[in-house]
């Protein structure tokens, strides 16, 4: 066991330090090339060491690969003018911690497959497949490629026909050797980066050989309305594969098409299930349209000529409607507590696009656009301006109701800007509906996405850069509703990221992760739902997947039987640190490494009491109440937990979990004094707040 003490160019008065079983080394600049060499020469792979010197916020830049226990005797000691005694205590706490810790295991995951599974063949999936090429396996639930874009008429904002984007993409995907599997769904996904086993099922029935004679179309008895457009259960492919395709969700297997077909059709609704091996997954399942039937005051599904934007666009393109007066309603279902309590992001642009499509085709048509707020960003503002110039009437209000009147529709709305009540007669009402995620796929992924919303990158780990690399990535509108250009850019980023990751022979990571002692775990499962990454899975045993765990330690603080631990932040180590730091009157501060700890680092110009003793934790959620009570038992005057602000937790909700623990501790009425146990949100630059809080605690 080795302890390295650094005097930071003689700015830290190092005490004489001896400890049984620990080799102590002194240096005056461990961060210099010579200093790093000094450690390297003495460091055995994976051996736990302690470095006492500057703050880890500085030190991590140089020493990360050693994964040391950092003891900050500069920002928390000499810079504050605090004496040798405190510095001694700090070093002792580090050594006690070191003795109780185990080496961090190096994690190596072999890349067993370099294939990348792409789920969904909308523009995002296609673009990812195009770039990945032969390594890509592209699956699609529908019988043809193209996703939502294949259903559209034009793309906004320029109004380019969808073929401009879709056709070249499809051509390159098909000719580029991508394995394409239509009519295929995911059954289950298991595994880890570099090694996923995916069960798929593929429809047995299909059109095997098609001459595109169209005779099947004439005999098919099943009529379907597909986003406003009538078609048969057998229909002409709008993209690829070409020829006629069967929609098995509506086909009644009557066999008429088989009778007339000069080629070959297999009518079979059942599935063929098989397993596939891949190294990474791109989820490009796009979005689902919110069903506005629920908005009964708008009459969709009940009144003729009330359309969703997609239905309207398709009917307009095919010349099925030529309205003289159209009302476009924004936020149909979005920003509505009853349905989607979020902004769907792109529907404002869709509404504007529909207005543009109408004006392009029928300049005389009168268009009203009803909105709560127009949300377009950047240069797209020009579209909004152009539409104002084209005479679209913008009404600042959401309609109260849509009712039939005199064979037309009547939209009742107050324009909030002029306080005028309008009753607008219309031939067509277009609901710019919001979007909902394809929740079905969330449930199949081995990650925690426990909500009804889109998995924004920061909701789990895609954006994290400090943990193990992730190999299930969301692209395009599966992540959040996105425009076509944005989807393509997003897909590119994800394709390149995965291609690069899987080009390595193995994925290595040596950051601390949680470990579940299977011998001790009682399968109580309390930890599982606390993991925002889905690293904890219960099968026979509860396991923490080191390829997924980000190392927050919330599960460790949670585990009621002490079976969970976090490498280098073991309960034993932290307890040892508490024991050597706490004396009568100590203010014990557990500070989150991402916010409160760096804040305290910057507090030395202001200064704070010497009684403050800081323990660095990965997340405030790692602070086990046992540590807090231990501090009080040993005579601490006060205990402070410093974490990130709510919504800003590096690990999503660790701070909130900790707040609940503190609330329950406070509820131990008369035993834990709320004035002496506080949890505070302290931002990275809030040194002054840190000082204020500890000074209050000093007086508590």
């Amino acid at each position, binding site marked *: 066991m080795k302890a390295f003490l650094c005097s930071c160019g003689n700015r830290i008065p190092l005490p004489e330090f001896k400890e049984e079983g620990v080799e102590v080394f002194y240096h005056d600049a461990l961060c210099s090339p010579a200093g790093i060499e000094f450690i390297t020469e003495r460091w055995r792979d994976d051996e736990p060491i302690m470095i006492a010197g500057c703050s880890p916020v500085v030190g991590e830049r140089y020493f990360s690969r050693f994964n040391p226990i950092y003891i900050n005797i500069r920002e928390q000691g000499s810079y504050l003018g605090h004496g040798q005694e405190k510095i001694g205590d700090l070093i002792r706490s580090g050594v006690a911690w070191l003795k109780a810790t185990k080496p961090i295991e190096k994690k190596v995951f072999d890349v067993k497959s370099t294939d990348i599974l792409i789920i969904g063949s909308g523009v995002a999936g296609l673009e990812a497949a195009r770039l990945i090429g032969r390594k890509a396996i592209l699956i699609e639930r529908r019988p043809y490629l193209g996703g939502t874009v294949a259903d559209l008429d034009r793309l906004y904002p320029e109004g380019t026909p969808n073929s401009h984007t879709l056709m070249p993409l499809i051509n390159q995907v098909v000719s580029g050797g991508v394995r394409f599997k239509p009519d295929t769904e995911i059954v289950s996904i298991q595994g880890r980066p570099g090694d996923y086993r995916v069960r798929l099922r593929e429809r047995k029935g299909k059109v095997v050989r098609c001459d595109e004679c169209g005779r099947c179309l004439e005999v098919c008895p099943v009529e379907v309305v597909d986003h406003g457009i009538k078609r048969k259960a057998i229909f002409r492919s709008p993209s690829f594969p070409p020829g006629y395709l069967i929609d098995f969700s509506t086909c009644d297997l009557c066999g008429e098409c088989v009778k007339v077909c000069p080629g070959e059709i297999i009518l079979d609704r059942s599935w063929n299930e098989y397993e596939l091996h891949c190294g990474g997954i791109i989820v490009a399942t796009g979005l689902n349209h919110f069903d506005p039937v629920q908005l009964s*005051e708008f009459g969709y599904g009940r009144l003729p000529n009330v359309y969703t934007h997609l239905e309207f666009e398709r009917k307009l393109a095919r010349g099925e409607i030529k309205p003289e007066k159209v009302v476009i309603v924004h*936020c149909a279902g979005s*920003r*509505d*507590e*009853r349905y989607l309590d979020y902004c769907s992001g792109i529907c404002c642009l869709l509404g504007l696009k529909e207005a543009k499509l109408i004006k392009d085709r029928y300049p005389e048509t009168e268009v009203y656009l009803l909105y*709560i*707020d127009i949300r377009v960003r950047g240069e797209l503002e020009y579209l909004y301006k152009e539409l104002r110039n084209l005479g679209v009437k913008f009404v*600042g*209000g*959401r*309609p*109260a*109701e849509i009712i039939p009147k005199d064979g037309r529709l009547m939209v*009742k*709305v*107050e*324009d*909030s800007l002029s*306080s005028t*009540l309008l009753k607008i007669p219309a031939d067509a009402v277009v609901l710019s509906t919001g979007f909902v995620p394809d929740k079905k796929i969330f449930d199949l992924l081995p990650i925690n996405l426990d909500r009804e919303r889109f998995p924004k990158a920061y909701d789990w780990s895609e954006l994290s850069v400090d943990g193990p690399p992730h190999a299930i990535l969301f692209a395009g509108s599966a992540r959040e509703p996105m425009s076509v250009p944005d989807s393509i850019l997003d897909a590119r980023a994800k394709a390149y990221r995965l291609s690069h990751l899987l080009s390595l022979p193995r994925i290595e990571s040596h950051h601390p992760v949680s470990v579940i002692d299977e011998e001790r775990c009682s399968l109580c499962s309390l930890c599982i739902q606390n993991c925002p990454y889905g690293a904890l899975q219960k099968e026979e045993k509860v396991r923490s997947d080191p390829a997924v765990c980000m190392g927050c330690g919330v599960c460790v603080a949670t585990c009621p039987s002490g079976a969970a631990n976090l490498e280098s932040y073991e309960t034993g180590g932290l307890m040892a640190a508490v024991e050597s730091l706490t004396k009568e009157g100590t203010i014990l501060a557990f500070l989150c490494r991402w916010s409160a700890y760096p804040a305290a680092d910057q507090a030395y110009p202001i200064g704070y009491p010497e009684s403050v003793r800081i323990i660095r934790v990965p997340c405030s959620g790692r602070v086990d109440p046992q540590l807090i009570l231990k501090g009080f038992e040993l005579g601490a005057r006060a205990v402070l937990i410093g974490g990130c602000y709510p919504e800003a937790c590096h690990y999503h909700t660790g701070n909130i979990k900790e707040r609940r623990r503190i609330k329950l501790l406070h509820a131990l009425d008369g035993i834990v004094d709320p004035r002496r146990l506080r949890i505070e949100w302290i931002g990275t630059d809030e040194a002054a707040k840190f000082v204020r809080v500890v000074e209050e605690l000093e007086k508590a």
Partner: protein
Amino acid sequence: MSLLKEVLSRPGGEEIRRCFACSTCSGSCPVREIDGRFNPRRIIRMVLLDLKEEVLKSDFIWYCTTCNSCQERCPQGVRIYNIMNILKNIAVKEGIIHPTFKAQVDLVGRMGRLYEVEDFDNKKRTKVDLPEVKKVFPEVRRLFDLTGVRIDE
């Protein structure tokens, strides 16, 4: 206390700050359609801006027909119907009460009924085989007293 704070503190008023002025309520209001001075959206905005005098002393707070159309449709779950009631209650507390409401309160307080039942009414009822009904409910009066509501005879 500020008007906004008082509204927020009462059941049904908590959600007022969610309002983003989409005007669904005012488009739905049958009174607003006839008399534009009564406008739930405006009243809510004025409460949010804490314009106490302007709100409480205005005639229009009494104009709500309690039809509840606004609240049913509000996309933000603002309980407009409850808020209109809260505003009237606050006005009454501040000594401003519409004479019609005052008369109703006095009637119900005295009799326990909105309409006075005379012997004549009961006779009329018995004539068509309907049972007689009670004329006065002293218990109701007691509930008014318990809640500190003064009844004018």
